């Protein structure tokens, strides 16, 4: 049977059924590929170059941000 993990993304908990599960695949899953964004995992920046290698674990807190209009 299949494992599930829970991630908190931008403040909202979401469940994923995950084998090998990287930040890169999350980005794909969330349909955010190609978008200009930055990701923080548990308060630490995840450099874009590390998306592939960085594995996510149950309970991880992620912030996925972009640039918006502001003064």
């Amino acid at each position, binding site marked *: 049977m299949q494992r599930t993990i829970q991630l908190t993304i931008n403040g909202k908990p979401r469940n994923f059924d995950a084998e090998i599960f990287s930040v890169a695949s999350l980005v794909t899953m969330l349909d955010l590929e190609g978008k200009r964004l930055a990701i923080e995992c548990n308060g630490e920046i995840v450099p874009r170059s590390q998306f592939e290698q960085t594995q996510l674990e149950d309970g991880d807190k992620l912030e996925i941000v972009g*640039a918006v209009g502001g003064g």
Partner: protein
Amino acid sequence: MSDLLKIADKTYGSRLLVGTGKYQDFAQTRAAIDASGAEIITVAIRRTNIGQTAGEPSLLDFLPPEEFTYLPNTAGCYSADEAVRTLRLARELLDGHKLVKLEVLGDPNTLYPNMIETIAAAKVLVKDGFDVMVYCSDDPIIAKQLEEIGCCAVMPLASLIGSGMGILNPWNLQIIIANANIPVLVDAGVGTASDAAIAMELGCQGVLMNTAIAAARDPVLMARAMKKAVEAGRDAYLAGRMPKKLYSASPSSPSAGLISSV
């Protein structure tokens, strides 16, 4: 012309910096910024709207980072920690971009800056290699401390964010400018063109604004007004104004050679 604004070793022809918030839509944002002639534009860092339709246009499509110098800010942050994290995300987002606007607010009613937290954040960010343009109160001593910490520009408020009250304390600004070895820009509080001109006449190196343009009845026309006002104020500062005197007794026309009464 050779009168350029220099911030962190980069020069700019325009001394007007503008925000990108509060506009009707991205098209208006772009039109206003073009009219303003601004080369440096501020952006906020916010959570990506997960699940938004992939195709939806973004600010960056209308304002390509190649065309403008982005100035990510920390608007909405109330602690040094949030501000630092936000700008580290911004740097990652913008491929290692170092020029940032630090702003740590003190309370949500006045949006007045919290200078204690701002100083704490500035120390971390400077050590971390950022070029920090810092939004601050008009306290001359704290402005000097921010320079000593290593900020690349201090940006005292003219009046409260979004208030449009103009320059409430030009005397403090004068002191800050007189003591500074880094650019002093007025940030926040400008409400109309003459406010921007006054800031430049005081000797500011530039002016940063958002609401004054975005909340005008005609933002694009106001953007053009602000462009001219900043240039006018700068020119007037460089031209050296006439002295003020209550009594002049010096007419503009010659006193001699008047016709005599019949």
